[in-house]
């Protein structure tokens, strides 16, 4: 019982964190609240599905292709739209919301509302401390954690990583240091979209994919980001864990019905009492 809460908590922590990372990254660096993030995740799943099922590409190839396509899409959305409105938070929210609707409708019109799926990369399951977990879940979790670590390393060690952090801290100062802020924003968006796509292909085999799933995913990303606070990779991971465990524990001790309500309440409370999030550096 408790074991299963622990084990599945880890699985969902990783996936939630992955969903949220891209979202919070672009949010902290470019102050863009990207409502289209969930839709990027969703579109990634559909791209992979179409490549596999309709064009019978091998799975690996399709996943790589899918991720690449989404990354490009991300850059496109940024350069084409968000760039122009950067700075005015409210209009950006509306813009990304509109873009999300467009993506959703585009999928519905082209593929239809039926639920699609991305085949799992590995079959079978194993038992961890007496809890049955499928290899797919294990794989997704591991990859998620690897990605999180990689992102962290990238931000800490690499040159452009440092640049991104600098921009996140103070755009103007960064600019005076000779950092090409525009370039940084574009790179960040690309990374964010890539993370979204990866989240998509890792989660799709575990759940089904329908066009409106994007909103739900965005919600999860929302929750984790708010709780974790922007500008801290491991804060994201921990927040993901907290959310995951809140859900599981509510489900176990109170009632599964109140899972979402519990999460939303935690969000609201965080926003009211510690708006910058548990590990956030950004001030209000």
């Amino acid at each position, binding site marked *: *019982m408790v074991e*299963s*809460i622990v084990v*599945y908590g880890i699985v*969902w922590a990783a996936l939630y964190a992955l969903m949220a990372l891209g979202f919070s990254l672009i949010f902290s660096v470019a102050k863009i609240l990207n409502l289209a993030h969930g839709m990027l995740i969703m579109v990634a799943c559909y791209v992979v599905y179409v490549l596999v099922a309709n064009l019978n590409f091998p799975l690996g190839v399709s996943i790589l292709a899918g991720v690449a396509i989404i990354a490009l899409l991300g850059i496109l959305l940024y350069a084409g739209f968000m760039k122009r409105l950067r700075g005015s938070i409210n209009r950006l929210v509306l813009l990304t919301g509109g873009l999300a609707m467009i993506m*959703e409708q585009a999928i*519905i019109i082209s593929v*239809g*509302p*039926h*639920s*699609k*799926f991305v*085949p*799992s990369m590995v*079959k079978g*399951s194993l038992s961890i401390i007496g*809890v*049955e*977990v*499928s290899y*797919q*879940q294990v794989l997704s979790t591991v990859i998620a954690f690897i990605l999180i670590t990689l992102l962290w390393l990238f931000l800490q060690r690499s040159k452009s990583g440092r640049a991104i952090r600098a921009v996140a801290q103070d755009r103007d100062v960064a600019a005076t240091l000779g950092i090409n802020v525009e370039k940084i924003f574009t790179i960040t968006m690309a990374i964010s979209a890539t993370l979204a796509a990866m989240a998509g292909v890792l989660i799709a085999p*575990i*759940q*089904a994919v*329908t*066009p*409106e*799933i994007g909103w*739900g995913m965005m919600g999860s990303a929302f929750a984790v980001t708010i709780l974790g606070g922007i500008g801290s990779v491991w804060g994201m991971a921990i927040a993901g864990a907290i959310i995951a465990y809140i*859900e*599981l524990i509510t*489900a*176990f001790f109170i*009632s*599964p*019905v*109140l*899972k*979402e309500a519990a999460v939303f309440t935690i969000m609201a409370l965080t926003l009211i009492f510690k708006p910058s999030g548990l590990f956030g550096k950004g001030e209000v």
Partner: protein
Amino acid sequence: MKKGAKILLLGAMICLMALAIDFFTRSEAAPPIKIGVISEWDFIGGHGTKRAAELAIRHINAGGGLLGREVKGVFYDSKADPGEAKNATERVLYSDKVDVVCGYWRSDLAIVCQPLVMEAKKILLLGGSAAPLLTKGRIKEDYNKYKYTFTAQPNSLLTLHPIDQSIISSMKLGLGKIALMVEKAAWCDPIFDVFSKKYANKIVYSNRFSTAATDFSVEFSQVKALGADILVVLSTGRGGIASVKQWYDMKIPAVYVGYPEAAQDPNFWEQTEGKCDGVAVGHIGGLLGLSITPKSVPYYNEYKKVYGEYPVAYTNASTYDIVMAWAQGVRSAGTIESPAVVKAMEKKPFNYVGVSGVLEYFNEIHNPVGGGWKEDEAWGWVSFQWQNGKREIYWPETHKTKDMIIPDRIRKLMTK
């Protein structure tokens, strides 16, 4: 006052716009018989309603139309929003001047729009909505107002029956410890109550989960811990596929039965990569590609031919059948005047041969009856089980293709 003038201009424009809408959309009820089809295009159910209505209209016209007149469909999206649905409904009623309204998969929309159609004294053909309030409630209470409502979809209370069959059949297989997991939705509440009462001494675990749930690990491990061997799940939400996959991955030693709506999908086997082996669910038999009536298989194949995929949601049958049934009613009444058509459709025996089954008559609350289904049973509905990639009907007897079984995988888990 310059500003004022501008505002005035805008105001005038808005009114003109309103008038323009009215003007463009107004048209006298001319030769073609018009069906207003309103459904939720962005959702599988509503999508099915739309397609099924299209096919039905096509077939009616192929058969020379109705009373020598062509039948024309007016299709609007309700966006799954009551306000939108209301606008759409009043648009078809008062500016498209349709002769009959069809559609509504989501019950809240039907609840809002049914009275509007009734006020206009037009026939309402419910595409998929099965809220008991619409028939059992309203028609019973105020027959004269609501008698124009017809549906080829048993109300959700009756769909309890195929679900119950899955429990009964699994008990026949010697299982007896029930875990009852029911989605927290209004349509589930009465069913949940009935089961909790009926199987009070057999239920070892029961809970309600949210329609947005996608993870069931905790619930399932409780089920496992409590040693339940019949896992009854009612879920129309996103949870369906996820729950089946988790049930498989967590090696739950229990048969998965009930109403995981996602399991109706002909591609469910591929979607779950065979993990759904042994899952039992209720569905309209006419959509299984099995010969429930002479119409079933042809419809199944034609649907594939037209839309490139097999029908998924039950609305694909219920909408088609109710529209065709209405057409038969109109033919026998010899007019499209609502009262006459109502009389014609209420005539016993009505004997309409549909995709889902033979509809002998509509009972006093306009629920379909016949073709081997009793009044208190879900007309047209069967219980089937996924058995190595195929959907095998095990209830009712009349349409049975295979017995319900406990898959070897689960048997092994149980003996372990």
